[in-house]
């Protein structure tokens, strides 16, 4: 089992990339450690399958290693990395028949770590919390289930865009370039997706049939 070493503090990605490019493999491993959780999370949100999400993460970091020499430093490394991750994930998704997010047997080991702290919370408690203080309702089983369903209901590209913004923290400018559009158009699209996500969550928590 590999030992996880503490990450060097205050060493930017650009320094690590340059070291890795010059043959410092430990610098590359530091980049992997730094970004692997979010890369996996973005991939999982897009492909909706843990095994495939891990394949995407593998492919993404392998691409990063193989293309370090060609990396254009004018973009942030993380922006480039998450763009590669989302591309790999969307390509994988489009190669196969869509599967419902609710394939619980695939997700069960992961979801067991996200079990609600308040497993006795009734649907009405969760709903009233969602209506007034959604952050306090977050751990309720009903909200976690609603999140899964709402995410699955988004169009693939919309889901990818949302995850690039919320997990990868990509800028509007980077997203506009990635989706080949303008910054105002990306802002408008993100707003529409956020409204849709809020609406989907609300419908699921209130027990209305999804669209």
């Amino acid at each position, binding site marked *: 089992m590999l030992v996880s070493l503490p990450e060097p503090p205050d060493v930017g990605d650009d320094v690590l990339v340059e070291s890795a490019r010059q043959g410092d493999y430990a610098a590359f491993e530091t980049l992997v450690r730094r970004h692997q959780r979010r890369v996996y999370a973005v991939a999982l*949100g897009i492909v909706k399958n843990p095994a495939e999400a891990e394949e995407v993460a593998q492919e993404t970091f392998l691409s990063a290693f193989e293309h370090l020499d060609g990396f254009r430093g004018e973009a942030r490394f993380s922006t480039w990395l998450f763009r590669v991750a989302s591309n790999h994930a969307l390509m994988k998704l489009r190669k196969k028949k869509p599967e419902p997010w609710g394939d619980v047997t695939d997700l069960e080991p992961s979801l067991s770590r996200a079990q609600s702290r308040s497993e006795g919370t009734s649907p009405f408690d969760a709903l009233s919390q969602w209506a007034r203080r*959604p952050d306090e309702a977050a751990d309720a089983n009903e909200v976690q289930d609603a999140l899964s369903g709402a995410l699955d209901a988004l169009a693939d590209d919309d889901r990818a865009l949302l995850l690039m913004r919320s997990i990868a923290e990509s800028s509007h400018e980077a997203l506009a370039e990635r989706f080949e559009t303008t910054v105002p158009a990306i802002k408008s699209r993100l707003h529409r997706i956020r409204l849709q996500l809020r609406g989907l969550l609300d419908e699921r928590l209130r027990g209305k049939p999804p669209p």
Partner: protein
Amino acid sequence: MSNPSRPVDCQQLVELLGDYVDNQLAPDQRASVDHHMNQCAPCMAFLRQYKFAPQAVRDHLLKAVPVDLEDRLLSFLKNRTKR
């Protein structure tokens, strides 16, 4: 704090939410939104849900990251890059 510009209604507030949460509104427009929400509980709840939803998605997916993913990834990469 800036003074509110023209008052906004609930529909107008929804249209401004994207720029509001991204801190892109002009100060007087932001003040108008704040003023409305201080007097409109449904809009305040709507804002909380609007802000919460993407954050909740993020937390939901990050919680699902396997604890041994890092080790498996590093082993895979070491093998594939012949290190």
